[in-house]
């Protein structure tokens, strides 16, 4: 790549140093010298001033009569372009993958996908909270993330929650969403309405505490290998001759509708399983439907004309 012809002085420096000088020249112009990064490198003040002077003259020449704000913008654009000529290119894809792996990528950056088992469960339920789940992921009130830095926890899960219907004392609920991160995709595995009327929600609770309580109330026992219970927070299970579908034994009486779901990813000879639950969908649907009926009645009352009977 050609170094700048307008600023031949930069040839004396290595590419990295030249990029640094140019980026600090831009910071100097942008902040009117107030950015502390400018004063940290005071030894290069002379070359920076020369560069800025040349670029300003160049811009003024190409845009005679331009207002000072416009000149400043163009000078900054020029300096940014020059910086990029000296820099190694940004590897955005691998940066995003690293940020996702250590749970540093903000949730509104991910593409959201719904797990197939979740889509089937939504059909069974007869009501669909997908749009609320997306709102919860994009603008959560509570978040809990697990990433590569957490040794003894799920590896790439993110939990989000948000209150809905806050004005309705008995029918307000916390929507709790459980996702698995892979690169810039957030795969939604589960979402549940948590009504404090049915499941206690205590200030200071971690979202994992709430899932546990929810599983105690709505779960049915299930089995993975030798493990049995209503809720599996995190486990590493050896792959057997049977595939995972066969080794996951979900209980429940005949005729009951059960949703078994969790985050499962294969790592060599092991399955990593997180947030596995087996929920009695009939029971969950019955309780949520009761709240939905209340919500509907309340909204009808709110829209009734004045003087109408309750």
């Amino acid at each position, binding site marked *: 790549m050609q170094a700048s012809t307008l600023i031949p002085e930069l040839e004396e420096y290595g590419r990295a140093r030249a990029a*640094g000088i140019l*980026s600090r020249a831009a910071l100097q112009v942008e902040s009117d010298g107030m950015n502390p*990064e400018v004063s940290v*490198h005071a030894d290069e003040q002379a070359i920076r001033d020369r560069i800025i002077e040349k670029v300003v003259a160049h811009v003024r020449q190409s845009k005679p009569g331009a207002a000072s704000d416009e000149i400043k913008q163009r000078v900054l654009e020029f300096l940014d372009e020059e910086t990029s000529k000296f820099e190694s290119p940004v590897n*955005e894809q691998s940066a995003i993958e690293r940020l996702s792996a250590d749970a540093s990528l903000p949730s509104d950056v991910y593409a959201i996908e719904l797990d197939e088992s979740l889509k089937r469960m939504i059909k069974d339920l007869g009501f669909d909270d997908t749009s609320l789940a997306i709102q919860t992921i994009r603008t959560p009130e509570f978040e809990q993330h697990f990433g590569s830095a957490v040794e003894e926890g799920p590896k790439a899960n993110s939990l989000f929650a948000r209150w809905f219907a806050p004005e309705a004392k008995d029918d307000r609920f916390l929507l709790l969403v459980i996702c698995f991160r892979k690169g810039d995709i957030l795969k939604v595995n589960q979402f549940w309405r948590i009504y404090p009327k049915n499941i206690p929600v205590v200030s200071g609770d971690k979202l994992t505490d709430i899932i546990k309580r929810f599983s105690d109330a709505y779960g049915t026992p299930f089995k993975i290998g030798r493990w049995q219970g209503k809720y599996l927070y995190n486990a590493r299970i050896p792959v057997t001759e049977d595939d995972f579908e066969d080794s996951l034994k979900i209980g429940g009486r005949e005729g009951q509708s059960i949703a078994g779901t969790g985050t499962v990813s294969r790592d060599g000879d092991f399955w990593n399983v997180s947030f596995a639950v087996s929920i009695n969908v009939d029971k969950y649907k019955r309780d949520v439907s009761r709240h939905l009926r209340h919500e509907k009645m309340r909204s009808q009352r709110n829209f009734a004309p004045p003087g109408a009977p309750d």
Partner: protein
Amino acid sequence: MPGPILYSTNPYFSVEVARKYRDGNFYAWCSEVFSAGQQAGDAPTSLVAASSDPRTVYEQLKRAVESEDEHDGRIEGYKKTFKRLASSWFASGEITEEQRDEIQALCKKPSWKLWRPLLYVVPRLPVESRLTLVKPHKRAGPGLEYTISDLKAAEFDIIELPWTR
């Protein structure tokens, strides 16, 4: 009399960058008052200009984030500043190439959460000797403003306010 508390509004991303890439050193441009408009009329602290008033900056930034204003000049400015800072830090060996890529990749991503405002509340006394008074011609108004570039997490509180005017 100087105010005992300093206030500074910054985007969430500043906190992320300070914690993850700057060894816990926070930068802040501070004012002696949170809201210049709520000071007694002739108090010197009422002279802070709107563009440096922490409350005004907070409200403007919050509104831009909530309305997902893609043309908000302040957010665009933050993105450009962080890209330039990442280039500068990498060039002087303060961060790795991977870290530079992460900061610059995040600046390119269409996130609103990164730019939501946070209020730094800084007790003045412990940091007094490290404050730099902003020269009058570099302030937006006659009110006093300060910068500090090595604020530590234990020296201040970070607040996310629930309201807007």
